């Protein structure tokens, strides 16, 4: 079982990102689950989304999770919410920030001693998609860190999932995924 927790603000696309990732993984024969805590459901409010991946049918519907990966797609959440809650020693963090990993860990001591990767998904999204929607770049970074799939396979799958959007937006998302894949450290 692979478990992922997303930290996001409502409107940044964590649910879409989690569902998109589940969709890609499902095509490879694995079983998936993607869900979210909506809280007060206000745009901009801190929220969490979740993925489960397994070789067998996923029966577990508890919301509680000790994640293998934590994705933080809004740079402020690493300071305003506890992104390390319910963690284990092997939990890996991919965090959106303009800081380097060293600067970030210094600024947020809770991350000390943890496996932290950083990438500036907000800037990447702004410069490629033209809007601060950091969900698809986060998935590009995840492909690099996890080595889950070949990036070309992943981009092809995401093109299908984004299929209903205008071609210009799809192309911009592909650039964003590739840039995050290349830039995550």
């Amino acid at each position: 079982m692979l478990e992922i927790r997303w930290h996001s603000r409502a409107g940044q696309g964590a649910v879409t990102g989690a569902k998109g990732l589940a969709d890609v993984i499902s095509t490879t024969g694995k079983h998936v689950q993607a869900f979210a805590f909506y809280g007060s459901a206000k745009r901009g409010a801190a929220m969490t989304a979740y993925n489960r991946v397994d070789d067998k049918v996923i029966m577990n519907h508890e919301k509680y999770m000790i994640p293998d990966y934590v994705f933080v797609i809004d740079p402020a959440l690493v300071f305003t919410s506890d992104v390390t809650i319910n963690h284990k020693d092997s939990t890996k963090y991919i965090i959106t920030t303009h800081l380097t990993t060293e600067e970030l860990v210094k600024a947020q001591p809770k991350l000390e001693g943890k496996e932290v990767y950083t990438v500036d998904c907000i800037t990447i999204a702004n410069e490629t998609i033209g809007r601060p929607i950091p969900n698809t770049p986060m998935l590009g970074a995840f492909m690099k860190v996890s080595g889950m799939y070949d990036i070309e396979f992943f981009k092809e799958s995401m093109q299908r999932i984004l299929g209903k959007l205008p071609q210009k937006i799809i192309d911009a998302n592909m650039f964003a995924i590739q840039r995050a894949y290349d830039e995550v450290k």
Partner: protein
Amino acid sequence: MAFDKMELKDIEVWDGNFAAAQAMRQCQIDVVAAYPITPSTPIVEGYAKFLADGYVEGEFVMVESEHAAMSGCIGAAAAGGRVATATSSQGFALMVETLYQASGMRLPIVLNVVNRALAAPLNVNGDHSDMYLGRDSGWIQFDAYCPQDAYDLNFIAFKVSEDHDVRLPCMVHQDGFITSHTAQGVHTLSDDVAYSFVGDFKPMNDMLDFEHPVTHGVQTEEDWHFEHKARQHNDLMTKVMPKIQTAFDDFEKLSGRKYNIVETYDMDDADVCVVCMGTSVETAREVATEMRKEGIKAGVVGIRVIRPFPFFEIAKALKNVKAIAALDRSSPNGTAGMLFNEIAGSLYNTEKRALLSGYVYGLGGRDLTKAHLVALFKELQANVDAGKVTTQLQQFIGVRGPKLAYL
């Protein structure tokens, strides 16, 4: 008017809401009258989009309340069409008056109920309060445990509800958010195969058949009211279960997916078991398997058909077990939980009555964790070892503050 077919992958990643909306599209509903409410909104939104995009030949009627939504469905069903809608919580509560009209008038309508808590305090998350509110309304009630079930049970609901020997409306329940907004793999049916299962709508006593005028929604006082109600109850008690079983069998032949009136898991040699509904059934199955590795012979019984209540099927499923926990996700507000009472009724006149204890859990979306279920199975084993219920008969799982226990 022609409509387009939709190409689906064998496995689509859908949440429970979209799975239900897709099933409604594939059944080619004639009329959906709806007033959207969280968390069921995407079901009717999905149907409306399919309609606007030319995938359905039907009517979407926007109304001013859930009371009007069900009233519109009743009118359309009486006129002679395939009818469905969706609601949750407060909307369901506002529909209650018309729910009794629908069943009393013997109209086949499918209502997707995305289970949510009832205010006050206001809460949009999932528990079974609305589902329990509907249980005396004369409807057939199916319960889904995951998005796949929500998809499949919609077809089965139309099949049973529209049967001329049944002619009773039918609810398909799914857990708010935990099923409705959780995307999982759903094995699909092609449009043609799905439609062939439900078949063309066959009207009965339809008001638009001008050659054979009929009256719907009549008044009967002391002279006839009781006979009508007795006949409706008789059909629920005698005719519906065999039709559900046939629909389950036919659906298995079509899809390979087997549904049962009572879903048993590892019950053949179980010493302890939980009886529950919704997503909790699946989580409990996973925990039961883990308990067996610890030497506790655990099983799970899920209720698939809530109304008519499977009185004898439940007794049969529980006949060899030693301790039972009945899990109710709705506040009984002054008595034992519904499942506790129903199970007690089923078992009371049987020879071997297992130790029975009741638990209230998960109100307003409070998480039922695997750790809760591990503790529960251990408590049941302690009851077996002691030969008696070692706790009070009603306890709460997952509520903060001092431990509460009653009865």
